């Protein structure tokens, strides 16, 4: 089905001042469109975890929110350095976050597993150029 709208949000590396703003913005947009609570909550969690992943672990990146008649897609792309062992990164509780980041309350190792759990469809690819996550939520 044809994409109705695409929103692009850029995210900077290590930008803890603005961290969370993109996910709040996405949430606000979805609320305005009028999606139901379950959809909004799932996307809020996916976008927040992704945003924090980009801020903490990557060289910066972006989130694209795609609105369709029957689904919502999130395309999350960063500029590296990539995930060495994706399977390990997908394990709940596994984290490469530094102790400084953990002190801020992040890096519990729930990011990627959380994103996957909230997605109806989830794909991840990663190499040294960066990581790409494609997450889809189907609308009933």
């Amino acid at each position: 089905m044809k994409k109705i709208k695409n929103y692009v949000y850029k995210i900077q590396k290590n930008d803890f001042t603005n961290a969370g703003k993109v996910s709040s913005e996405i949430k606000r947009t979805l609320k305005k469109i009028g999606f139901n609570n379950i959809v909004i909550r799932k996307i809020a969690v996916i976008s927040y975890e992704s945003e924090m992943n980009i801020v903490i672990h990557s060289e910066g990146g972006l989130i694209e929110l795609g609105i369709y008649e029957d689904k919502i897609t999130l395309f999350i792309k960063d500029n590296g350095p990539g995930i060495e062992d994706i399977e390990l990164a997908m394990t709940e509780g596994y984290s490469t976050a530094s102790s400084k980041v953990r002190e801020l309350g992040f890096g519990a190792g729930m990011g990627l597993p959380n994103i996957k759990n909230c997605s109806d469809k989830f794909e991840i690819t990663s190499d040294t150029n960066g990581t790409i996550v494609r997450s889809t939520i189907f609308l009933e």
Partner: protein
Amino acid sequence: MKRTFYLEKDKCKGCTNCMRKCPTEAIRIVEGKAKINDDKCINCGECIRVCPYNAYNAISDKIEDLKKFKYNIAIPSTTVYGQFSLGTQICKIHNALVGLGFDYVYDESWAAELVTKAIKDKVSEDINARPMISSNCPAIVRLIKIKYKSLLENIIEIEAPMEIAARLSLERVLRNNKDLEKKDIGIFYISPCPAKILSVKEPMDKKDSYINRVISLKEIYGDMIRELKMHSESCFSNPSLTGLKWAISGGQTEACDFENSISVSGLENVLDILEEIELGKLDHIDFIEALSCNGGCVGGTYNFENPFVANSNIKHILKKTDKGLLLNDDVEKYTELKSKGYFASKIIDKFEEDRKPNIKEAVEKIDKIEQIYDKLPKLDCGSCGAPTCRALAEDIVNGTDTIDSCVILKLEGN
């Protein structure tokens, strides 16, 4: 009824103070006067608080309404005990109410202690919903209904202490006065805020309140002070210390004593926390006490005393009251009341929120708003009568305002 206060138009200067403070952007300045959108108003009372011209007035019942009933019960909000000079005994406050014509005073703190137990049970029974949000502040429940619908299922659906107090006091009075019938009895709640007045006049669970009349504390404060001075005799009445804590921010949290909880007060702070919950950041928290007024219910607009002073007064009572003293025996009846369903409440109608959006139309509308917003100066000056440039853009797309309202664009010659 959707609102328990009104604007005295003659006093309103159209100054934008209330419009800027309103957490749901429910206020616009139209033709130089504030105009409230009742569908968005949560009755938090911020506009009443910030108005420099005292243009907002409470819609409150009057002490004269006592005449309408054969027998009158007063239920003072727990905050009432913080409104008089340090060391004022609770029983003297009760006596003052009797002096004003009430036949019986029932302490809200007793009911708050019972509700504390009910909250504890609910939170430990319902382990899948996290975090659970207290429903004690009606302004916050309405805020969630309007702005944070995805959090509706996190709200703890439990009857408010004032309703439990009304029900138990009524039963007690009927038991002790065989010649009275329910219709003879007037139950009056003394309220610290417009939100609780609305909860009596228009209960969220859509069944009738057990309270018959509700008076703002400011409405009878003068009468109470004068009456208080006339009662010097010593007396005896015990609040529940667990329940009394509910008057101040952090009190419910302390009373419930969960492993992980957050107590937050003041609308701006509450908005931040609700935002965090929606992003899934607080799923590890068991219980959130979110109160609309800074400092908790002692910060309610209809209180007389400064909230920090009232807080100190309440803490003084908490410290000085003998914990071992006997309370009203209703407080011991938790298990019985629970099994009879006293605490059950249906605040949230989950089905009312489930609708299918017209995505295309909504996206087009958002695009239009963005296009207009781009043209606006983004100063959020409020001169147009809307709280922010974005709000004006929305109003224009909704057809309730035009871009000509923007004073800055006009000055720039557009």
